[in-house]
């Protein structure tokens, strides 16, 4: 079954070097993971930058679907619907231990 779910992905500035400077990308997919993979087909460097060994999301990145943190749902397997917006937002951490 093919999907026609169109989802907009917002790319933060530190990641935009992996998307040729594009900050909003519209792709199709029925889960967050599928959507990210679809972006990765357009911009091959994208997945390497956000996933650890192609699997889970990097520790210091968070993903929100329409403002909701996917960690409260099914993480990368969270389902998305037509018109949803996915924001990729780096964690805000200070760090300190030399």
């Amino acid at each position, binding site marked *: 079954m093919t999907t026609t779910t169109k989802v907009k992905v*917002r790319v*933060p*500035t*530190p*990641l935009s*070097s992996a998307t040729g400077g594009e900050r909003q990308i519209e792709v199709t997919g029925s889960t967050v993971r599928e959507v990210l993979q679809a972006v990765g087909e357009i911009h091959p460097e994208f997945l390497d930058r956000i996933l650890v060994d192609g699997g889970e999301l*990097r*520790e*210091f*990145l*968070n993903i*929100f679907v329409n*403002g909701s*943190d996917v*960690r*409260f749902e099914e993480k990368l397997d969270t389902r998305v619907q037509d018109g949803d917006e996915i*924001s990729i*937002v*780096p*964690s*805000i*951490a*200070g*760090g*300190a*231990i*030399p």
Partner: protein
Amino acid sequence: MSDETSTAPPKHLETLHCRICGTEVAAGPVHVCEMCFGPLEVHYPLEALRGRLTWEVIRGRPTDLWRYRELLPLEGGPTLARGVGWTPLLPAPRLGAELGIDDLWVKADLSNHPTQSFKDRVVAVALNRAREFGLEDVGCASTGNLANAVAAQAAAGGFRAWIFIPKDLEPEKIIATAVHGVRVVRVNGVYDDVNRLCAEVADRFPWGIVNVNLRAYYSEGSKTVAFEMAEQLDGAVPANIVVPMAGGSLITKIGKGFRELGALGLVDPGRQPRLFGAQASGCAPIIGALERGEKRVEPVRPDTIARSLAIGNPADGPFALQAIRESGGWGAGVSDDEIREGIRLLATLEGIFTETAGGVTVAAAARLAAEGRFKDSEGATVLCITGNGLKTPEVARSTYELGEVIEPRLQEVERLAEAGLGLGA
């Protein structure tokens, strides 16, 4: 600041270092590494400062946090925010006797200038750095205390300020923010929604959001709590420090502060304080990970009266965990009833009226003492009381009656005196 004559920007402030992968990036209002999205931090030339920055030099300076300016990330001297920091470190013998903690002290950041919380420290550093970067707009995501601090210091510094807060924040904190003539934006969500929004705002507008894209500088201000404790204890390192945790930055930076003092030879480098984290059990993501033995901090949805600590997705959670574990400390999550009791104990035994976060700290100290966590240590135990109870009076309002009204006649007071204080003591 006459004992420093050089005007060239210090070289160590030209770059920030990724805490995770070590990548160096040019200093600016940026907060994450482009390679791995790890947090960025400032490194200091501690070897070069060793022997030059002495307690004698520091003691000759004005009593505010700028007396430690070589360990703060400013290129020049501070141009804003004088008089911030240098809060009292007070012995707390009556509370210590109640809780069974020897040599107990309170670091009273609830008397900070200008807005009575430890956030005055971090904002002082962030806004001075914002001025050095030429930023005209500043802002923050806040649970209240930070909003007060940014609003007051932005007003004094002539910045335009954007203060993003959860819509249900206490009216007292909103009024104490709005009075400074800043733009208060109430967001329909909890703090974590506000924080996420501000991360996107900082990416979209050329603004300095103090706890987002100025965070590498902002958070350094927290170290001054450690510097002051050491100086106020005549160079001794406390055995135990109990610290409230929201985003987890303060406890992390107190640890960093003592390590820097050790590297400079200002304290015994072989002795570090044990760090104990305090959270409300209704929002205890860091304590949860600590107790489960995990490295990652899973987010929670906050439900606690301690709204200034109600951060379900703590930015520095993993670093706070690391700081606690490496120091040999521990932590406690306490209930809303324990928080109210903590506020009562500090107020009735030491005369200090703290907000809910202070109640969390006192309650956590009580729990940790009962568990015997402070037993095998020699030296001071310090409670970080980070905010003022006058900001959250409604928490106490339900606990205390306003008292009966009498006629202005001596017989009325004689009647009351015969009945005693009536406190049930």
